[in-house]
């Protein structure tokens, strides 16, 4: 099974440890992982700002980088959703179509493709799971509280396999943190208020760590936690699932 590792641009630059944990985790499960060095970004920052029309080159680059893999795996629900919904290539339509079908967010890949039911990981802390919206409502990583439907959660299921980890309950288990891409600066006041309210929910329930499948949301929450001088830390789910 040849897996192409797709690392979001900001993770590459600011959170290399998340990329490393993702890679090591996939290798542990026997995947033959390759990281195309020429990758940059999925194009989502432009598209969500209304400039999907400018993402043509990003799309071509992405298609070229990832056309030769059985699966493409990425530790971000948001970037995966963008590729799934918006990747098009004028040069290689077949490859783009295949990529849209074969691109997976890390926890859904571990759950649905690798059928992981056991993990060699330990993380003896109280952990709050932040459900990032694109992963949850876009990729259906977890059931959504708005729907009258049976609950499930792929990230929660994996976290429950980690030794010593205690998942906390939240008052609002799937409310948006307010990151929202450029929203976090164009609507700074609301964005921060949403983030503060998420942080408060986790703190009130005794979280040592806030985790999630999207580092962008966690970066936003981390910025608020640090400014508030909170002891609560953020950690990407890949790091926890890979923790020894």
């Amino acid at each position, binding site marked *: 099974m040849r897996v192409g590792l797709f*690392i979001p641009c900001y*993770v*590459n*630059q*600011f*959170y*290399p*440890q998340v*990329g*490393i944990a993702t*890679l090591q985790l996939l290798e542990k499960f026997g995947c033959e992982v*390759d*990281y195309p*060095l020429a990758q*940059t*970004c999925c*194009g989502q*920052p*432009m*598209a*969500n*700002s*209304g*400039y999907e*029309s*400018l*993402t043509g080159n*990003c799309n071509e*680059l992405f298609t070229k980088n990832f056309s030769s893999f059985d699966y493409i795996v990425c530790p971000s629900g948001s970037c995966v959703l963008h590729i799934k919904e918006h990747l098009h290539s004028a040069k290689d339509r077949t490859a783009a179509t295949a990529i849209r079908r074969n691109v997976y967010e890390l926890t859904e890949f571990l759950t649905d493709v690798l059928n992981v039911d056991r993990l060699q990981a330990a993380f003896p802390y109280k952990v709050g799971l932040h459900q990032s*919206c*694109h992963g949850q*409502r876009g990729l259906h990583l977890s059931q*959504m*509280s*708005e*729907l*009258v439907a049976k609950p499930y959660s792929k990230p929660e299921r994996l976290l429950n396999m980690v030794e010593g980890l205690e998942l906390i309950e939240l008052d609002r288990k799937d*409310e*948006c943190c*307010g990151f*929202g*891409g450029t*929203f*976090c*600066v*164009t*609507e*700074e*006041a*609301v*964005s*921060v*208020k*949403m983030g503060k*309210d998420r942080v408060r929910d986790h703190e009130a329930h005794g979280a040592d760590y806030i985790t999630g499948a999207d580092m962008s949301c966690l*970066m936003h929450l*981390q*910025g608020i936690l*640090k*400014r508030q001088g909170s002891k609560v830390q953020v950690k990407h789910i890949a790091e926890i699932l890979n923790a020894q």
Partner: protein
Amino acid sequence: MSNSNHHTDHATLAEKFNRDEARVNWHDETLWFIRQKRDRAAWSLGNEWEPLRETASAIKAHTLSNLSDYLQQFEKAAQQNGITVHWAADGEEHNRIVHGILAKHNATQLVKSKSMLTEECHLNDYLKEKGVEVIDTDLGERIVQLAEEHPSHIVLPCIHWKKEEIGELFHKHLGSPEGVIDPSFLTNTARVHLREKFLTRRVAITGVNFAIAETGEFVVCTNEGNADMGAHLSDVHIACMGIEKLIPKREHLGVFLRLLARSATGQPITTYSSHFKKPREGQEMHLVLVDNGRSTQLGREDFRNSLKCIRCGACFNTCPVYRRSGGHSYHTAIAGPIGSILAPNLDMRQYKDLPFASTLCGSCSNVCPVKINIHEQLYQWRQVLTEEGYQPKSKTVAMKAMAATLSKPSLFSIAGKWGRKVMGLVPGLVSNRLNPWYKQREMPAPPEQSFTEWYKQNRKGGKS
């Protein structure tokens, strides 16, 4: 108050709203409470709920695909029932028609129950200018009217008002004792005040929740009973509706009335679901069918489904942005997520900010009883606004620069490397008050190495 908001954008108005954090918390929690009531009501129908949404959505899709025929069928049936049917191409014509009916009857006063359409058409302002006194009879609407404001929510017009403020307002305008803030007492004060209006006004305006093509009747839903008090005591009843309010058959009400109140407030049904088919003996009944941009929206394939909306307000209550920015920050009659996809159709320039007043979290689409893909339409409006040239030049320049950098891996890696280095050396360069991120958040600490750099050092495949 919200009239003056036309010249500024959502982000600015939201920032103002957020200066009083305790009030934002209160607003957020009040609306979240309604979202929770909605959840319980939805779960009470168990496995019927999701199929019901699906059916409602499909009935609306069908109706929109055959709207011109249904409109004619409805008109004919309504006329046979003795209702006078009027057609208005836009808000201006709607207002003229209503005023024409009033003038014919020499009426200078009227009572009006909730109609978001008349808000959309600015009927109150129009009639005021013509010397007609309009009394809004929905309690929440009366409160904002006394305060010379507009509703901040389509179902809960004064959700942004605190009882202390309402007490003060009623003391000033309705003579209630100073300092009285008990909701029962204040409601009763309004009841006495408005009952006199019901008994003395000869003309009543109501909105329309659903109109039935097959039978020519229309349905108005309220909890207070104000639409019925107004309509049944009036000599002239004028009902105003957007052309998208049609449904084909009476039996379809079974679907929509099961969804409406549960989605709106978590009630199993509104207290009153009144079916107006014929005027009362001796009464005149008028119905104004209003287009006002709806046929344009119908022609926009990506946005057509927004016309399925039944105005339940569930998307407002669930929206984390709405709850923390207040209805007036949307500077349009219909605020919230649905308003943000309806308003740009009416005026892209004026409402170009609204599709960006969202994180695209998608909760709105999930609560929508007619399954409008609201968050996808918000995304799509952003693209249209760019195409039509409504984005600021500076943003376009920045986006083009970003696209150029991200198109070239070598450029991206250099930019990333320098960015991290500069951030490490001169933290003040990004960590300053001019950076909106930094205002209330710390920046992430730049690491020594990017993942790409690490990979090159640590994995065989990384050797270039």
